Protein backbone atom coordinates (compact mmCIF):
# COMPACT_ATOMS: atom_id res chain seq x y z
CA UNK A 1 0.00 0.00 0.00
CA UNK A 2 1.36 3.37 -1.02
CA UNK A 3 0.41 6.55 0.76
CA UNK A 4 -0.23 9.71 -1.22
CA UNK A 5 -1.32 13.21 -0.41
CA UNK A 6 -2.87 15.96 -2.49
CA UNK A 7 -2.57 19.55 -1.38
CA UNK A 8 -4.89 21.82 -3.29
CA UNK A 9 -5.38 25.53 -3.24
CA UNK A 10 -8.95 26.70 -3.63
CA UNK A 11 -10.25 30.18 -4.39
CA UNK A 12 -10.78 32.34 -1.28
CA UNK A 13 -14.50 32.66 -2.05
CA UNK A 14 -15.16 28.92 -1.71
CA UNK A 15 -18.24 28.22 0.38
CA UNK A 16 -18.58 25.45 2.96
CA UNK A 17 -21.14 23.72 0.70
CA UNK A 18 -18.69 23.67 -2.20
CA UNK A 19 -15.95 22.35 0.09
CA UNK A 20 -18.27 19.59 1.33
CA UNK A 21 -19.17 18.68 -2.27
CA UNK A 22 -15.49 18.41 -3.20
CA UNK A 23 -14.85 16.30 -0.09
CA UNK A 24 -17.69 13.85 -0.77
CA UNK A 25 -16.88 13.54 -4.48
CA UNK A 26 -13.18 13.14 -3.77
CA UNK A 27 -13.93 10.43 -1.18
CA UNK A 28 -16.23 8.65 -3.66
CA UNK A 29 -13.57 8.81 -6.38
CA UNK A 30 -10.91 7.39 -4.06
CA UNK A 31 -13.24 4.61 -2.88
CA UNK A 32 -14.20 3.70 -6.46
CA UNK A 33 -10.52 2.97 -7.19
CA UNK A 34 -10.26 0.57 -4.23
CA UNK A 35 -8.27 3.07 -2.22
CA UNK A 36 -8.67 4.17 1.40
CA UNK A 37 -9.16 7.80 2.38
CA UNK A 38 -7.05 8.61 5.45
CA UNK A 39 -7.93 12.24 5.99
CA UNK A 40 -9.42 15.33 4.40
CA UNK A 41 -8.24 18.45 6.19
CA UNK A 42 -9.11 22.08 5.71
CA UNK A 43 -6.03 24.14 6.52
CA UNK A 44 -7.83 27.44 6.32
CA UNK A 45 -7.35 30.78 4.68
CA UNK A 46 -3.80 31.90 3.83
CA UNK A 47 -2.15 34.99 2.47
CA UNK A 48 -0.38 33.71 -0.65
CA UNK A 49 3.28 34.36 -1.41
CA UNK A 50 2.20 35.77 -4.77
CA UNK A 51 -1.05 36.38 -6.61
CA UNK A 52 -2.69 33.32 -8.15
CA UNK A 53 -5.45 34.06 -10.69
CA UNK A 54 -5.44 37.61 -9.33
CA UNK A 55 -6.22 36.37 -5.79
CA UNK A 56 -4.13 37.47 -2.82
CA UNK A 57 -5.69 34.86 -0.53
CA UNK A 58 -6.46 31.16 -0.89
CA UNK A 59 -7.83 28.22 1.07
CA UNK A 60 -5.70 25.08 1.36
CA UNK A 61 -7.03 21.52 1.68
CA UNK A 62 -4.98 18.39 2.30
CA UNK A 63 -6.24 14.97 1.18
CA UNK A 64 -4.41 11.80 2.17
CA UNK A 65 -5.11 8.30 0.95
CA UNK A 66 -3.69 4.80 0.63
CA UNK A 67 -3.80 2.80 -2.59
CA UNK A 68 -2.53 -0.54 -3.88
CA UNK A 69 0.31 -0.37 -6.40
CA UNK A 70 -1.76 -1.85 -9.24
CA UNK A 71 -4.59 0.71 -8.78
CA UNK A 72 -2.49 3.81 -8.27
CA UNK A 73 -2.02 4.93 -11.89
CA UNK A 74 -5.74 5.16 -12.85
CA UNK A 75 -6.55 6.84 -9.52
CA UNK A 76 -3.82 9.47 -9.87
CA UNK A 77 -4.96 10.25 -13.40
CA UNK A 78 -8.58 10.45 -12.28
CA UNK A 79 -7.61 12.83 -9.48
CA UNK A 80 -5.70 14.99 -11.95
CA UNK A 81 -8.81 15.26 -14.12
CA UNK A 82 -10.95 15.86 -11.04
CA UNK A 83 -8.94 18.87 -9.85
CA UNK A 84 -7.70 20.27 -13.17
CA UNK A 85 -10.85 19.90 -15.27
CA UNK A 86 -13.96 19.26 -13.19
CA UNK A 87 -13.19 21.74 -10.41
CA UNK A 88 -11.02 24.05 -12.50
CA UNK A 89 -12.94 27.13 -11.37
CA UNK A 90 -12.66 26.35 -7.65
CA UNK A 91 -9.20 24.75 -7.49
CA UNK A 92 -6.37 27.06 -8.49
CA UNK A 93 -3.38 24.77 -7.87
CA UNK A 94 -2.78 21.23 -6.67
CA UNK A 95 0.18 18.96 -6.08
CA UNK A 96 0.26 15.17 -5.64
CA UNK A 97 3.03 13.80 -3.43
CA UNK A 98 3.96 10.21 -2.65
CA UNK A 99 4.58 9.63 1.04
CA UNK A 100 5.96 6.17 0.45
CA UNK A 101 4.91 2.89 1.96
CA UNK A 102 3.61 3.54 5.47
CA UNK A 103 4.97 7.09 5.27
CA UNK A 104 4.81 9.27 8.37
CA UNK A 105 1.58 11.22 8.75
CA UNK A 106 2.93 13.91 11.07
CA UNK A 107 3.74 17.20 9.43
CA UNK A 108 4.28 20.85 10.21
CA UNK A 109 1.43 23.03 9.03
CA UNK A 110 2.04 26.73 8.44
CA UNK A 111 -0.12 29.02 10.56
CA UNK A 112 -3.26 30.16 8.79
CA UNK A 113 -4.96 33.53 9.01
CA UNK A 114 -7.91 31.87 10.77
CA UNK A 115 -5.76 30.55 13.61
CA UNK A 116 -3.30 33.45 13.77
CA UNK A 117 -3.86 35.95 16.58
CA UNK A 118 -4.94 39.42 15.58
CA UNK A 119 -2.03 41.65 14.76
CA UNK A 120 -1.30 44.16 17.46
CA UNK A 121 0.48 47.37 16.81
CA UNK A 122 3.80 47.54 18.58
CA UNK A 123 4.22 51.09 19.71
CA UNK A 124 7.33 50.41 21.79
CA UNK A 125 9.53 52.05 19.16
CA UNK A 126 7.49 55.24 19.25
CA UNK A 127 7.46 55.23 23.03
CA UNK A 128 11.22 54.73 23.24
CA UNK A 129 11.91 57.39 20.68
CA UNK A 130 9.67 59.84 22.55
CA UNK A 131 11.54 59.00 25.79
CA UNK A 132 14.84 59.68 24.10
CA UNK A 133 13.51 62.94 22.79
CA UNK A 134 12.49 63.97 26.27
CA UNK A 135 15.90 62.96 27.65
CA UNK A 136 17.60 65.04 25.04
CA UNK A 137 15.53 68.00 26.05
CA UNK A 138 16.55 67.59 29.67
Amino acid at each position, binding site marked *: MMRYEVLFLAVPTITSDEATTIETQCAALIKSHKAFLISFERWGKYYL*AFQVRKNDYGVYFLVRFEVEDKDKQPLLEALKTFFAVKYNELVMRFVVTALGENGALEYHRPESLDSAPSREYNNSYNRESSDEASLDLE
Partner: protein
Amino acid sequence: MSKLKISGRLLKKRTRKSGFTAAKRCRFSCGELPESAIDYKNVDLLKSFLTERGKILPSRISGNAAYYQRAVSREIRKARTMALLPYSQNY
Protein backbone atom coordinates in the same frame (compact mmCIF):
# COMPACT_ATOMS: atom_id res chain seq x y z
CA MET B 1 59.35 50.40 2.91
CA SER B 2 58.42 47.65 0.55
CA LYS B 3 54.80 46.70 0.53
CA LEU B 4 54.00 43.14 1.60
CA LYS B 5 52.55 41.34 -1.38
CA ILE B 6 49.87 38.72 -0.74
CA SER B 7 47.55 37.01 -3.16
CA GLY B 8 43.79 37.50 -2.88
CA ARG B 9 43.16 33.81 -2.42
CA LEU B 10 45.65 33.55 0.43
CA LEU B 11 44.19 36.62 2.08
CA LYS B 12 40.72 35.08 1.97
CA LYS B 13 42.08 31.84 3.42
CA ARG B 14 43.77 33.67 6.28
CA THR B 15 40.73 35.75 7.14
CA ARG B 16 38.61 32.61 7.10
CA LYS B 17 40.99 30.89 9.49
CA SER B 18 41.30 33.80 11.87
CA GLY B 19 37.62 34.79 11.72
CA PHE B 20 35.25 34.22 14.60
CA THR B 21 32.41 32.91 12.48
CA ALA B 22 30.87 29.61 13.51
CA ALA B 23 32.04 26.54 11.64
CA LYS B 24 29.86 25.69 8.66
CA ARG B 25 27.97 22.45 9.09
CA CYS B 26 25.03 20.57 7.67
CA ARG B 27 22.12 20.66 10.13
CA PHE B 28 20.73 17.41 8.73
CA SER B 29 23.94 15.40 8.62
CA CYS B 30 24.89 16.25 12.20
CA GLY B 31 21.46 15.16 13.45
CA GLU B 32 20.22 18.57 14.59
CA LEU B 33 17.22 18.21 12.29
CA PRO B 34 15.66 14.97 11.00
CA GLU B 35 15.49 14.33 7.27
CA SER B 36 11.69 14.19 7.55
CA ALA B 37 11.73 17.91 8.41
CA ILE B 38 12.52 18.63 4.75
CA ASP B 39 8.96 18.94 3.54
CA TYR B 40 7.27 21.42 1.23
CA LYS B 41 4.64 22.04 3.93
CA ASN B 42 7.29 23.01 6.50
CA VAL B 43 7.51 26.57 5.25
CA ASP B 44 9.19 27.98 8.36
CA LEU B 45 12.21 25.72 7.93
CA LEU B 46 12.44 26.21 4.18
CA LYS B 47 12.40 29.99 4.63
CA SER B 48 15.73 29.69 6.45
CA PHE B 49 17.26 28.39 3.20
CA LEU B 50 16.12 31.39 1.16
CA THR B 51 17.74 34.76 0.70
CA GLU B 52 15.89 37.98 1.44
CA ARG B 53 15.14 38.15 -2.23
CA GLY B 54 13.56 34.67 -2.18
CA LYS B 55 16.33 32.82 -4.00
CA ILE B 56 17.64 29.46 -2.81
CA LEU B 57 20.80 29.78 -0.70
CA PRO B 58 23.77 27.92 -2.17
CA SER B 59 25.17 25.06 -0.11
CA ARG B 60 28.49 26.86 0.27
CA ILE B 61 26.62 29.37 2.44
CA SER B 62 23.94 27.20 4.07
CA GLY B 63 26.45 24.39 4.71
CA ASN B 64 24.06 21.67 3.55
CA ALA B 65 25.47 18.39 2.30
CA ALA B 66 24.81 17.79 -1.41
CA TYR B 67 22.10 15.19 -0.77
CA TYR B 68 20.17 17.45 1.62
CA GLN B 69 20.71 20.52 -0.56
CA ARG B 70 19.03 18.72 -3.45
CA ALA B 71 16.15 17.66 -1.19
CA VAL B 72 15.72 21.19 0.21
CA SER B 73 15.71 22.83 -3.21
CA ARG B 74 13.24 20.22 -4.52
CA GLU B 75 10.84 20.96 -1.65
CA ILE B 76 11.26 24.72 -2.06
CA ARG B 77 10.28 24.40 -5.71
CA LYS B 78 7.22 22.38 -4.70
CA ALA B 79 6.24 24.99 -2.09
CA ARG B 80 6.63 27.71 -4.73
CA THR B 81 4.21 25.87 -7.02
CA MET B 82 1.64 25.95 -4.24
CA ALA B 83 2.26 29.67 -3.54
CA LEU B 84 3.54 28.87 -0.04
CA LEU B 85 6.90 30.44 -0.86
CA PRO B 86 7.70 33.26 -3.28
CA TYR B 87 9.62 32.89 -6.54
CA SER B 88 11.08 36.32 -5.97
CA GLN B 89 10.53 39.02 -3.42
CA ASN B 90 10.19 42.50 -4.85
CA TYR B 91 11.32 45.49 -2.91
